[in-house]
């Protein structure tokens, strides 16, 4: 399935919804959206992953990029990641730099 990344921004939150297969060829698309999101200086970056089927190392590298681009003060939420993706995040330790959640409440986040 083709990769797609859609950015929505509200006052303090940038939300990127990912779908399809995130590999080396599609990672630049994700990276571009992260850069756009960072330009708005959000407090939170929310990555919706329920429809993301596969993430190669190139995709994980964009996560590192996001963390470093946004800065330590920006919380990155990984929402509803599928088991295989979560497993890779855990094995490589990338789960430590992000907040992994099953559900995400936009209204709640805005208050934080």
């Amino acid at each position, binding site marked *: 399935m083709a990769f797609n990344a859609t950015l929505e921004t509200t006052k303090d939150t940038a939300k990127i919804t990912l779908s399809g297969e995130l590999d080396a060829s599609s990672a630049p698309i994700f990276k571009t959206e992260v850069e756009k999101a960072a330009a708005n200086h959000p407090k939170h970056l929310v990555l919706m992953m329920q429809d993301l089927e596969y993430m190669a190392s*190139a995709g994980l590298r964009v996560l590192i990029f996001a963390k470093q681009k946004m800065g330590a003060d920006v919380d990155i939420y990984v929402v509803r990641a599928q088991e295989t993706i979560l497993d890779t995040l855990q094995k490589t*330790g990338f789960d430590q730099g992000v907040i992994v959640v099953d559900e995400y409440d936009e209204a709640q986040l805005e208050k934080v």
Partner: protein
Amino acid sequence: MVLERIDIHPTRNERGFKLRRGRPLPFGATLVPGGVNFSIFSRYAKSCTLVLFKKHSPEPMVEIPFPDEFQVGNVFSMIVFDLDYENIEYGYRMDGPVNHDKGHHRFDSSKILMDPYAKVIGGRDIWRETPDWNNIYQHRSRLVFDDFDWENDRPLEIPSEDQVIYEMHVRSFTRHPSSSVKHPGTYAAIREKIPYLKELGVNCIELLPIYEFDEFENSRPNPQTGEMLLNYWGYSTVGFFAPKAGYAATGKFGMQVDELKTLIKELHRNGIAVILDVVFNHTAEGNEKGPTISFRGIDNQTYYMLTPEGYYFNFSGTGNTLNCNNPIVRNMVLDCLRYWASEYHIDGFRFDLASILGRDPWGAPMANPPLLESLAFDPILAKCNLIAEAWDAGGLYQVGSFPAFGRWAEWNGKYRDGIRKFLKGEPGRVGDMAQRLQGSPDLYAWAGRAPATSINFITCHDGFTLTDLVSFNDKHNEANGENNNDGGNDNDSWNCGAEGWTDDPGINALRKRQIKNAVAMLMVSQGVPMVLMGDEVGRSQQGNNNTYCHDNELNWLDWTLLQSNNDLFQFFKHCIAFRNAHPVLRNQNHFRNVDYVGSGYADITWHGTQAWNADWSDSSRTLAFMLCGKHAKSGTVVDNYIYVAINMHWDAHWFEIPGLPPGMQWHVFANTGATPADIWAPGTEPQLENQSGLLVGDRSVVILVGK
């Protein structure tokens, strides 16, 4: 206005790829703006071609010869633009003389050669997955990204004398089905077992080789059982800069670098340092009949020690010898260690057969080996442990005389041998034992080398486990398929009355006591103690003292032993905690045998069955010593007094105990001859009933603490 840099533009096109003259340093493949800088040394190659593959492709994507003008000196360098970093593999073809009479060159342009500086190596991505032997490029150089988020991590810099080292094999530690981890046998799995290491109390793990190696090197079926024997331990390096992919749960995704760094960061967060066992004495290319992977096809004469006839010197016992004191190779070793120290935050290195590193290109030992000196004074390695296995397979034995340059520590083989002989009750060992307990001043003090120079160990991956040391008189290596001819014969072991397993409760009790005696002596010795993985729970290799080839239960740690031998685990744990609690056991300087703080006691005093009167005779098998707590860390710290009585005689003996300063009492921390309780948690030691003496059982150790 900031102008766009113009030095990042291609200057020519070749076969559809944009190129620019590269930078000769650093060697290897380096990401630069817009492209990758490839740089490789060869003194004798006439030409060099960069070979690029799409990841996993059987055939190259393109081959780009280095234009003549891209060569400076003996270095070929070139920037290739617009490469898909994630999805390429690269290698080189080198053309040059093939001349066994003059120069002993082995150039072969039909071979694709791995970059000696490859930071990631593909081809053995999944442990034990049978390779495609028809693949024209077996070990494939890949690119690495230095974007790991270390946060505020840095090497721990634990003072050497405060370290307790745990020697372990990445796969063996968690591969056993009883380990209850998600990804057995991997870096990720070690992360799950950090709480275990913390409970045991060690603050440093020493990993058997994790540089990329080929587990299929010399693989063969066991003639008796048909089981596949592998290059399991990995003492045969394919690439010095790349972590073993097959040890990573994410190896198949090529993410072993991230997984290993995550492990190191997490260990550091828990106060545990990481030492790598590094093998620079030889490579996986073997002798004349071995495969051409990298070095021999790039510059055979530079990288290897060669006989005048062009054969490989074999000081390593494994086919070839890396030419470590050639300046090119020396720099490669230095670059490699700097890379691991800075990029992986490695805390120290243990050098396999390190005496080879002190031989000149013709094999002769040097008085001041430049490689060892360079490592000792290197600014990036300045805080790393440098530990030598101070001997080699060519007969050089340098325990006590390894060229140290004020920095090098040694695996103290004389400690291992001395304590084993004393433990089994050999006569004439008391004098030697006194030296070993003090951090071997006879070996090191004269040269101004600290007690922590001595890495004290009784067992290591080479040889018997501690359980086997007290259960077997002889090695039983039949499973290795070498007719029991491999492995050492000088084990200094004693089976306590029966060879191998027995139902005799007396023998079994004695074996446990001997294990406890051994660790008790180890943990009260000055120097740096090292424990072999699994000794703390009684791991056995069934009498095999050379399990280098077994990917099975001979090597794997059986975690059910933690239950069945929990008393051993508790004993180890308390002994390590006791050492950690008492600075007087961890001195930076050698004892002076005098009272230099005015406590009324010398820093160390020697006793026997009579207080103040040790029996140094050949027939003696008893020894006791007392450490004055006011002399801890050269008198800078106040600690308790410690008294240790060791009876390696087969009869019990009454030991008269030296008196303490007024107001202090002796308390019992450990008594291996006591039942049912033989040890107490530090701080909870009960007071000794009779303060003037106690009966020390046959083959037993007593440790008292005066407070």
